[in-house]
């Protein structure tokens, strides 16, 4: 007189079958909906309305929006221009719902401001975003850093950049580089050293993985550009003295000019071309370089999944 065995067996088998069915179909449904959830969110694009609709749970809603944004702009989606147009309203909504969500402002500075395909190409909106962040978080030096960043790299307005870095450097806890950058802006704006300091500050002051990867990529690009510039100078000197372009960079080694064959941050040696220019072995490894590229090279979409996260010195 136990519970009916036949029922138990059938129900158990059915349970497992249904569970597998649930997991399988859910996967399918997910794939069909991958873009939908983001579009749906933005049907209500007014931050004020959203705040009212959230019935006091703005923080939670901000987190939801932020997660969707990050997921959407995660590794596999980055680099596709059409998607960036959703980034600005998403960040604006997120920061309106939660003005203290710092990472959203950092994201704006890093990905809203730069020109496509590396960013949304909206530097003015990025500035507005960061400035509203500064109003809500006056004690955050990171936001001044972000502001200076945008002025420096996108607007090339060194005056405003210096101002931002200066103000930020006065806040306690500010990264020591900020003061140096502010002080040296007048003379060294546009230098490699300045850029390196800025990207290093970014790398060290953020916890967001994507921003870190982005900073590393830039630092590597800087190294490459520096190397290429220096190597090309060496090559033209060599040409002046010997009358021809070296066939291989190892000629520099045998001539005693360099201690060893120069390698790029991924460890591959640079190549010297017959026309005297220097090129990197795999341009795809360096998304942000403007020098050392073979002519007619088209940059690929960014893919951070292959990168490692160490700062090259």
């Amino acid at each position, binding site marked *: 007189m136990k519970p009916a065995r036949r029922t138990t067996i059938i129900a158990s088998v*059915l349970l497992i079958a249904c569970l597998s069915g649930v997991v399988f*179909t859910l996967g399918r*449904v997910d794939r069909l909906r991958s873009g939908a959830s983001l*579009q*749906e969110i933005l049907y209500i694009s007014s931050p004020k309305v959203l705040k009212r609709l959230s019935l006091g749970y703005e923080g939670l809603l901000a987190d939801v929006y932020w997660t*969707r944004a990050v997921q959407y702009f995660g590794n596999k989606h980055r680099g596709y221009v059409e998607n960036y147009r959703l980034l600005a309203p998403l960040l604006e909504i997120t920061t309106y719902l939660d003005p203290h969500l710092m990472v959203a402002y950092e994201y704006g500075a890093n990905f809203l401001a730069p020109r496509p395909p590396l960013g949304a190409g909206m530097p003015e909106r990025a500035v507005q975003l960061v400035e509203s962040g500064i109003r809500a978080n006056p004690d955050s030096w990171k936001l001044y850093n972000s502001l200076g960043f945008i002025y420096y790299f996108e607007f090339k307005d060194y005056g405003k950049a210096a101002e931002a870095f200066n103000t930020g450097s006065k806040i306690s806890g500010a990264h020591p580089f900020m003061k140096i950058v502010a002080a040296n802006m007048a003379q060294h704006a546009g230098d490699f050293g300045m850029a390196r300091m800025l990207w290093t500050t970014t790398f060290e002051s953020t916890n967001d993985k994507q921003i870190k990867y982005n900073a590393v990529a830039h630092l590597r690009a800087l190294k490459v550009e520096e190397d290429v510039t220096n190597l090309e100078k060496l090559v033209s000197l060599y040409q002046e003295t010997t009358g021809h372009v070296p066939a291989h960079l190892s000629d520099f080694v045998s001539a005693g000019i360099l201690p060893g064959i120069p390698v790029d941050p991924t460890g591959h040696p640079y190549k010297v071309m017959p026309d005297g220019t220097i090129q990197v072995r795999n341009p795809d490894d360096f998304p942000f370089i403007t020098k050392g590229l073979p002519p007619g090279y088209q940059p690929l979409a960014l893919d951070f999944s292959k990168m490692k996260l160490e700062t090259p010195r």
Partner: protein
Amino acid sequence: MNPRISYIAANTFREAVRDRVLYNLIAFALLLVGAAILVGQISIDIERLVVINLGLTAVSLFGMLIAIFIGIGLVSKEIEKRTLYTMLSRPVRRWEFIIGKFFGLAGTLVVNTFFMAVGVFAALLYVSHHLQRPDAWLLVALYFIILQFLMITAIALLFSSFSSPLLSAVFAFSLFVIGNFAEDLRGFAAMAKGLTRWLATGAAYVLPNFSALNVISSVAHGEAVSRQLVFYNSVYALFYAALALCGAVLIFERRDLK
């Protein structure tokens, strides 16, 4: 279909009606009429949007409340009140009882939704004076809402088979809320690491995915719903409801009645 299941389903429907559940339709109708008239002052396009968004959201919420508040008592109330004693001493198998109750409540919700749908279309007609082709997608949205009801009913029934009404209500309601953010939960899970990631992903897959069944805003903007989505959503909802019902059957099958 098994005659006893249909008798139990019919009686469950009768119980819901006599419980004056269908009076909710009056509240719904008032809400919709009020909104339609209020919104009739504003310009075109917005009115349509508001009526559809408000109407469908109300259908979904009202139905969800009914599903939960009746669902949680389906089994526990009968155990509490001992009405099951004379029921189970008859040639009714315990699983037939569960399935019958499910169909009874599901049927009540379908009827309820039907009347509400008529209301929504009537309000839409009132504010935009004629129906357009994209309005047909409303039917798909309503169908998805019914699928949600099936899932929630099965969930409430599952909890009812072992838990007190209060706890069941809390669980079922929480699942409804979480289920609407299920996609975000999977997003959170994807960003976690190690054991947390596995547990979170597992949980996210077992939780009911109501967000995929919520196409109210797309439909309000006149957007189509892909046939594939309709198919997979249907299969998903049916699998999920069946899953919860299997659980309910297994639990109830071996329960000692006090």
